[in-house]
């Protein structure tokens, strides 16, 4: 009786592990098949938004310091604004068109991940939203061109004050403020530290 029971438990255990092993195998096969495509998609998402900012650029390289670490990586500027990283956008002749600043700012529903172009003459080139979780119909209008186009051509020294030089999205002051403050503070931060960056590039 007792032996029977142990035998039964062992068979059950083996059966269950067999199922698990087959499942894990099937998954790892699918994973390895789809992995390149998944990575491609992730790269494409950022690259597409970079391309939309500088259509003439053909190469985007991550700016790194002497030890090959990305500069400004996950740099916290204040408790709701973080810099993610900076890219250089260059055209066919390898001419530097501008920098692409990627960062995030805490909006109404969560972080708003944005990327914008910073021209060499200190103006904002244009802004694009990579990710957000704002309320549909309200804050989600943050992706609309009529709001984002307001940032185009602004000097880094401008105030970026919602209701003064930026018209907010209807009934979504918090979202509008989050984005404009995110851009203002990150661009100021980059401006203050960018001399180092250009030097590095010359070296």
């Amino acid at each position, binding site marked *: 009786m007792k032996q029977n029971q142990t035998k039964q438990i062992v068979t059950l255990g083996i059966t*269950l592990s067999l199922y698990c092993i087959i499942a894990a195998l099937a998954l790892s096969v699918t994973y390895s098949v*789809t992995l390149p495509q998944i990575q491609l998609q992730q790269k494409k998402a950022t690259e597409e938004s970079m391309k939309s900012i500088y259509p003439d650029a053909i190469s985007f390289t991550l700016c790194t310091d002497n030890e090959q670490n990305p500069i400004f990586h996950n740099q916290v500027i204040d408790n709701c604004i973080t810099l993610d990283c900076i890219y250089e956008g260059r055209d066919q002749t390898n001419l530097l068109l501008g920098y692409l600043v990627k960062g995030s700012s805490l909006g109404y529903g969560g972080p708003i991940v944005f990327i914008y172009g910073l021209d060499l003459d200190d103006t904002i080139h244009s802004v694009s939203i990579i990710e957000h979780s704002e309320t549909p*119909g309200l804050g989600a209008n943050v992706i609309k061109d009529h709001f984002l186009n307001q940032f185009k051509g602004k000097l880094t020294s401008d105030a970026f004050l919602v209701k003064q030089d930026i018209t907010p999205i209807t009934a979504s002051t918090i979202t509008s403020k989050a984005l404009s403050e995110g851009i203002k503070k990150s661009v100021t931060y980059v401006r203050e530290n960018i001399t180092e960056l250009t030097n590095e590039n010359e070296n």
Partner: protein
Amino acid sequence: MKTKIKQLLTKGLLKENPVFVLMLGLCSVLAVSVSVINALGMTLAFTFVTVLSEVTISVLRKWIPKSLRIPIFIVIIASFVTILQFLLQAYFPSLNKALGIFIPLIVVNCIIIGRIESFASKKPVFDSILDGLGISLGYGIAILSIAIVREILGNGTILGYSLFGTSFEPALMFILPPGAFLVIGIEIGIINHVSKKASRKEASK
């Protein structure tokens, strides 16, 4: 035979609708019905997992020990869900983002577990395919009927196309959480009313 096929395919529509009548799988229905396109995506995802799990379990039904059936069902469903996640990430990344956590949560959708337990683990493969399709159809109809109302009233669009021009102001509440509860409540009311009327008619005949 034909009537059997028809019966298996259509029973989920109204009579045994998993959402409206049996009130299962409500979480994803309410959360994802913000827009018709998300609802369509969710329906396809649900169909993928339900049909494949039902088929697999129906094939393996003789090799699944009774005492271990629940964990094995879960392993099989979870595997298909994970495969689905890979496929979505690889080929439909925006849909994957929009459906978010509700894709992995298909694993604990009571509809699928329920169908497997009461149908696929006992019936032959072909019937299980039909059952899976039928139940997914019912799920799809429920989620779409909610999504259509919510997107039209809450956003003024259908599948992203503007319906009424700019003078129409949508009532945003319909795409906020309270709108989901409101719309499903009224739709269930209508369905109950209609089916009650139908059964009364039948009785009077």
